């Protein structure tokens, strides 16, 4: 039996944390627990993890402003109400990528690795009616529970 786990990471940090999280939670990504990372960032991944890289659509000055706003709580929350919101943008980018979107919809478990992938995981989980967790530790703990049950 195989369990399909999709990790969504809007930030580079979230994507980079996947490998250590697998190690810390003693999860081996293989044919039994198939782990796919969906992210716009190019990061080296642990053996066995499949990476679907989203094309990043934001370039230039707006991207700089959007990044700067993420550096403070006020900036992040002001951004939430603007088109610069990376939480909403990540979901839009994911929807535009048919392979990634389908993979996420078909996952047995979704994990939002960082704050800006929460909305995407939440929306997809509502649509697919599959479990979804916030955070890598919580996510892999749930994966282990589900794997042991099945």
């Amino acid at each position, binding site marked *: 039996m195989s369990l399909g786990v999709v990790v969504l990471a809007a930030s580079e940090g979230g994507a*980079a944390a996947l490998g*250590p*999280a697998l*190690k*810390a939670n003693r999860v081996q990504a293989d044919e039994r627990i198939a782990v796919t990372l969906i992210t716009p960032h190019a990061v080296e991944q642990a053996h066995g993890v499949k990476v679907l890289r989203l094309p990043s659509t934001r370039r230039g000055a707006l991207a700089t402003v959007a990044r700067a706003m993420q550096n403070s709580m006020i900036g992040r929350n002001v951004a939430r109400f603007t088109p610069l919101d990376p939480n909403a943008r990540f979901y839009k980018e994911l929807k535009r990528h048919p392979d990634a979107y389908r993979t996420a919809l078909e996952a047995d478990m979704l994990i939002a690795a960082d704050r800006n992938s929460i909305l995407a995981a939440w929306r997809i989980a509502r649509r697919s009616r599959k479990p979804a*967790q916030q955070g890598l*530790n*919580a996510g892999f703990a749930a994966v282990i529970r589900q794997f042991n049950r099945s």
Partner: protein
Amino acid sequence: MTSHEDPPHLLYVAWGFPPNRGGGVYRALATANTFAEQGWKVTVLTVNPEAFEVTAGVDESLLDHIRPDVDVVRIDYDVASTQTDLTAWSWPRARFTELWMAQRVLRNMLAFPEPGSGSWRRTVEKAALRIHEETPVDLTIGTANPYIDFAPGYALHKAAGVPYILDYRDAWQLNILSGRRVTGPRSLVARTERKLMRSAHQVWFVNQPILDWHADLYPDVAGRMRVVMNGFDAELADFPADRRDPDSTRLVFGYIGTLYSEVPFRTILEGWRLAKTHAPELADAAFRVHGYLGHQGDYRPDALALFDEFAHTGASYEGPVGKATIADTYAGFDALVLMIGPGRHVTSGKVFEYMATGLPIVSVHDAQSGAVSVLEGHASWVLASEMTERAIADAFIAGARMAAAQTAAERAAIQSWAARYERRNQLLPRIAELEGQLNKRGEKR
């Protein structure tokens, strides 16, 4: 033990109890076990392990170390930070997560002035009162942080006159790294702490500088304050005195613990790299870091990137170590690297473990650190004279020479010198004092 017919009943409130893997859990475990070993009936009030999966992390091997005569009552810890099931989240929470959390923090603060756990107050107080109804409690100890662990002791004291002890592993109003007060004198935290201090039977601190700071703030409570230092646990008491591999010329430096962001890790790695270029005995040496990167089980991309950048120097991140394998992990090192945050209020728990092994210790931290006073007298210890690459490199080189030259007899002598820091030896005098006081209370009744 006291002269009560029934053994005295300790209610020990510890959010972070096994299988929690977070800071302070060894102290909590040892406290509960040592009281039970001394004949007390011990009930630990803690949370269901699911809470740790999403916070500090889990070390299942710790469960085997709880004495069978310690009763553990686990209750739900249903606070916002542990609700990670996204399918149960509302749209505003998923869309505006930080703003949603901010309003939740405000509500928590009104219940108890601790942002993450205030809303747990009613649940934990009710559980403590229920335990007292079933088997009357003679003493409550709450160990913090989280400071919500202090609330049940106060509630039992108000309801039934049960004495309570506040066990501070850190400080609520003092930033132990900067030495600065972090709350105003009229803040909710200050008012709550004052109230808790006023009626406490005793207040425990992990070192003298933190006690002194609180004694200045609460002079009327100073007489009831005690230092109960951390220590090392019994499994390290029989650490081998022999060299790991006397024939190997490849030295292995090790670190076990949480790597906090306050540690200047890049400077330390630069110092390590410099040392390797200057000392032939370090040319093929390894520096293995075990433990967690960050307080909440996060994975600090900055630290991970540094491991990648310095991989060619033999520095590597090896992941967490469970309590069951900690002695074996130490046995794989020739010398230890002590990396802790700055400040005279910081002792850290790992310094005692380090001393128990008898291995040479390379201290790369602030010279004002509280750990320095503990380490003074250690025969194989070197402290970086300042936190610069050059001074850190010199410390690594000196540590390498100590490691290469250390004999089994020298290591055994350090182990014997450090035996005073076995955790049990820190707790026994306090337990004896409490037994005397409780007896007196019983006689007066």
